[in-house]
């Protein structure tokens, strides 16, 4: 505990910003899981994504912070909201899972978490402090990533377009109404 307090005193505003963002991220992630209404769940997930983008900016990965907001908070979450809207999920009845199941799954998850954190904090697995000698500050910049993406990773990049085509065809196939089907 004293070790943690000592660590706390060495922080500058950026360090406090990290801790604040971390707390916000964890709280809104818990909101996703515990919210009764699916709409509140989606909103909490959007908040989580914005907090994660803040983390990316702190880590000097500006390009991915922007992409995270555009793709996740912008596109994917709108898709979720749309689905919830036209399935008209207002009932909050369900949740028929017994308390026993819930307690058991929380215990399983908690055990896994404690185990993983113990492993990461073990003395033998301490990560070496990053050497500041050959540090490149512009790792996450668009220019650097673009060179890599269109250089060594050109084949996976092109294959992603094929994946998108297949996903689009599949979504239309699955979502299309057959002749005798209900609308919703």
């Amino acid at each position, binding site marked *: 505990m004293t070790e943690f307090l000592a660590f706390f005193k060495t922080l500058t505003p950026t360090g406090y910003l990290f801790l604040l963002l971390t707390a916000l991220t964890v709280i809104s992630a818990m909101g996703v*899981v515990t919210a009764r209404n699916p709409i509140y769940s989606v909103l909490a997930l959007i908040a989580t994504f914005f907090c994660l983008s803040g983390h990316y900016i702190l880590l000097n990965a500006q390009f991915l912070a922007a992409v995270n907001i555009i793709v996740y908070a912008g596109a994917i979450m709108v898709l979720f909201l749309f689905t919830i809207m036209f399935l008209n999920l207002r009932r909050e009845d369900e949740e028929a899972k017994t308390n026993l199941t819930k307690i058991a799954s929380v215990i399983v998850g908690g055990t896994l978490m404690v185990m993983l954190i113990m492993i990461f904090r073990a003395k033998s697995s301490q990560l070496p402090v990053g050497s500041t000698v050959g*540090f490149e500050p512009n790792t996450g910049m668009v220019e650097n990533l673009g060179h890599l993406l269109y250089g060594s990773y050109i084949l996976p990049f092109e294959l992603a377009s094929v994946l998108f085509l297949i996903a689009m065809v599949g979504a239309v196939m699955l979502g299309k109404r057959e002749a005798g089907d209900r609308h919703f």
Partner: protein
Amino acid sequence: MQPTQDVLIPEVIQQIPLTYYLILSTVLFIIGIIGVLTRRNAIIIFMSIELMLNAVNLLLIAFSSYKSDSAGQVFVFFIMAVAAAEVSVGLAIIVMIYRNTRSIDVGLLNKLKW
């Protein structure tokens, strides 16, 4: 030469040990797992899976920034692309389930249960 190099390193990397990012993404991942195990609403289960994907993304970006290696961030970019495709197909499947059973409670889909 030395002072200018110190200035260029982001402050977070100088102050926060990488272990803290490991712990944060572990916590996010576990929250996702608990969400999948406790909820019955298919859409919320799907969102918990997104949460787990994002925990892994955060970890990849943290490692790539601390080691100043861009390959990790390209990897995150591909994970985001695959996640977008996955969400569109998954939501189409959920809509189809709703059309057939009038509910998105995963407890009703028990044909594969033994």
